[in-house]
């Protein structure tokens, strides 16, 4: 052994070698920190959304004893009866001591305006009810609900909160009589939008998103796959195909609001399709997702080994048969993944829908692709912008539902890729 350091001494690593390992260690640590940092952001996001939103799945109900007095239903139509009057009457019977005009106003405000709709629906479903007295659980007002969920601080002075002292006393009395309780919020999953937080539901937006994505999927998948197959398998290699390729890649990076403007100009102003409907929304999102699907489709077609094409051509398959029998089935998992990712992107999009009027207050749950409807992200945006405090938790809950759908779709993409991937 001479004094020159060599790497051949297995027992004593040289300083050079040590340095190499140090760099490697540092690189690993940096990578780990980056991952930890992003994970903690995600965790924080999930935590804040969940802690804000989980209360939205519960809702406060108040039990009323409603007397459906026959004289109230003298009008020809059941709908014309004074249902809010019935609610008020029930409240007055429960608290006979309240006589002042202002006191009554505070008393009535404990019950959601939705209570009247509940009664109307009950009577319309079963007109025999008229003349009887029924115990009915109706929605409490959003302020009561916020108080029950601890989002209004009782310890503040009366002027500093939306619930008066006298209302607090009534609420406590109702609670002690077991006439006020929080239950699972079924309304949230079965109704459309509303300006009353206690009545607002996500179903309209979920169905709107469903119809919109249905249109998007049924248009963009076949068109995207056909375009990808043509460009990858059939198109001659020349300047035109290069130009098309560059343009498709560019389109994938175009801000989505541009597609909204395009949709407004073509589908609404030129074709005259109805505004605010899933049909137009689906068409606009089709324009937006097509580049993603085409790019993913071409990548997965490229990854099909050429030996398969040769084998098929070698036994005398035509070009079309080679593609449809062999290449396309092998590329399909990749294409599906690309499509689902494109769909997930479309599910979370609001900007292009703004231009075609899907950012709108729509109460009725849409029944088809030509009914006006909102979509999930739009619903989140609208609720986040509403002044009532009760919408804060609804917003978070809607985000949770949107995230659930996104996670489900992305897991499906991973599942499909794993399931149909062909090992060589």
């Amino acid at each position, binding site marked *: 052994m001479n004094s020159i350091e060599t790497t051949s001494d297995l027992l004593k690593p040289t300083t050079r070698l040590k340095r190499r390992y140090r760099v490697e260690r540092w690189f690993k640590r940096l990578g780990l920190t980056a991952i930890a940092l992003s994970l903690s952001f995600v965790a924080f996001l999930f935590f804040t959304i969940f802690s804000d939103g989980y209360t939205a799945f519960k809702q406060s109900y108040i039990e009323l004893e409603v007397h459906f007095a026959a004289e109230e239903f003298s009008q020809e139509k059941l*709908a014309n009866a004074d249902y809010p009057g019935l609610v008020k009457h029930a409240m007055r019977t429960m608290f006979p001591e309240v006589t002042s005009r202002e006191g009554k*106003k505070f008393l009535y*405000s404990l019950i959601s*305006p939705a209570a*009247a*709709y509940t009664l*109307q629906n009950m009577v319309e479903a079963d007109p025999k009810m008229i003349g009887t007295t029924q115990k009915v659980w109706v929605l409490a007002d959003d302020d009561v609900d916020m108080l029950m969920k601890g989002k*209004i*601080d009782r310890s*503040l002075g009366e002027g*500093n*909160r*939306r619930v008066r002292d006298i209302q607090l006393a009534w609420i406590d009395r109702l609670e002690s009589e077991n006439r006020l309780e929080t239950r699972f919020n079924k309304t949230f999953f079965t109704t459309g939008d*509303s*300006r*009353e937080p206690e009545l607002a539901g996500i179903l309209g937006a979920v169905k709107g998103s469903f119809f919109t994505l249905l249109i998007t999927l049924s248009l963009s998948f*076949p*068109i995207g796959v*056909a375009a990808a197959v043509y460009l990858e398998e059939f198109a001659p290699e020349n300047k035109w195909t290069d130009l098309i390729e560059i343009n498709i890649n560019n389109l994938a990076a175009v801000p989505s609001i541009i597609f909204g403007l395009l949709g407004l100009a073509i589908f*609404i102003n030129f*074709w*005259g*399709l*109805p*505004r*605010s409907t899933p049909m137009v929304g689906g068409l606009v999102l089709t324009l937006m997702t097509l580049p993603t699907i085409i790019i993913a489709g071409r990548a997965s077609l490229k990854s099909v080994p050429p030996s398969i094409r040769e084998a098929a051509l070698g036994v005398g398959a035509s070009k079309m048969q080679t593609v449809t029998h062999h290449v396309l089935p092998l590329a399909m998992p990749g294409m599906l993944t690309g499509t689902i990712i494109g769909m997930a992107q479309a599910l979370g999009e609001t900007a292009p829908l703004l231009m075609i*009027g899907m*950012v*709108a*207050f*729509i*109460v*009725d749950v849409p029944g088809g692709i*030509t009914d*006006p409807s909102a979509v999930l992200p739009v619903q989140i945006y609208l609720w*986040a*912008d*509403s*002044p*009532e*405090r009760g919408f*804060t938790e609804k917003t978070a809950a809607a985000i949770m539902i949107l995230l659930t759908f996104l996670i489900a779709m992305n897991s499906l993409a991973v599942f499909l890729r794993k399931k149909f991937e062909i090992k060589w």
Partner: protein
Amino acid sequence: MKVTSIFVAGALTLALTAPAMAARDYISIVGSSTVYPFATVVAEQFGKTSGSKTPKIESTGSGGGFKLFCSGVGVNFPDITNSSRAIKASEMKTCADNGVTEIVEVKIGYDGIVLANSKTVEALKLTRQDIFLALAKEVPDPANPEKLIANPYKTWKDVNSALADTKIEVLGPPPTSGTRDAFVELAMETGADTFPVIEGMKKTDKEGYKRVSQTVREDGAYIEAGENDNLIVQKLQANPTAVGIFGFSFLDQNADVLHGSIIEGEEPNFEGIAKGAYPVSRPLFFYVKKAHVDVIPGIKGYLAEFTSEKAWGEEGYLADKGMIPMPKEERQLFSKNVASLKVMDMK
């Protein structure tokens, strides 16, 4: 090839059948984001109780609403547009050019614009002059009142020695917002008029007057917080020295954490705005296309619901949502106009 022809056929069918699908059985409403919270409540109430379809309401801003509204007559165009200001002559002309000649104007109530801050600190007591001095881009030089200089004020105390020594930090809506238009017009312009030099420009230099009285400073003291008023509310809670500008309904809903600044001795509350005492308030409107009333089902019902006492009355549900009702005589006048569908005088 087969695949392609199917798509071509599909696209053609879609294009051909499009007009047939365009029949509409619900009311389409567009317009101001300030009126949106009120119109939506009426629409919901109407839909839930009448059995008709609930009207669809888009919040496009007053200007955007008129643009859509005035594009023409037919099912593809909205029936009603909400506005936080009266229709402009130019918009009326666009309407007339596109065949929208019969418009019913309905004033529905008032909205106050408030400057609010966190309850953890004291409420500001301001005049409109203070507001102008604090927020304008150019103000008269205190040393030489004849000359306009770039706004030098950093703290509220600089503006008015009676105010607190805190930094001027105002969160407000961007120029696209109707709230901003109204704020500039009602607060800033009136404040500007208290200075003879600016007042004088009204006659000599109209453009210059508009620029000076309406331009909000851009040196960071005024922060454009986007259209989302809830965001401003949240930021005010986090930052007690900041002041926010938004509609009264947001203050009403967040009265537990925020309080409004007192402007010229008037607190921004329900009574003050209804009486007209609170200076920064504005009327709200909606406009109905008369040609649509008998074509689209439900418009009459919606109008009746909106102009009923239980909606826009002093005890009505719109008041619960923060809209300031009109005096009784005004309500009667407009509900009569609506009942008879009295159209506006198109100049």
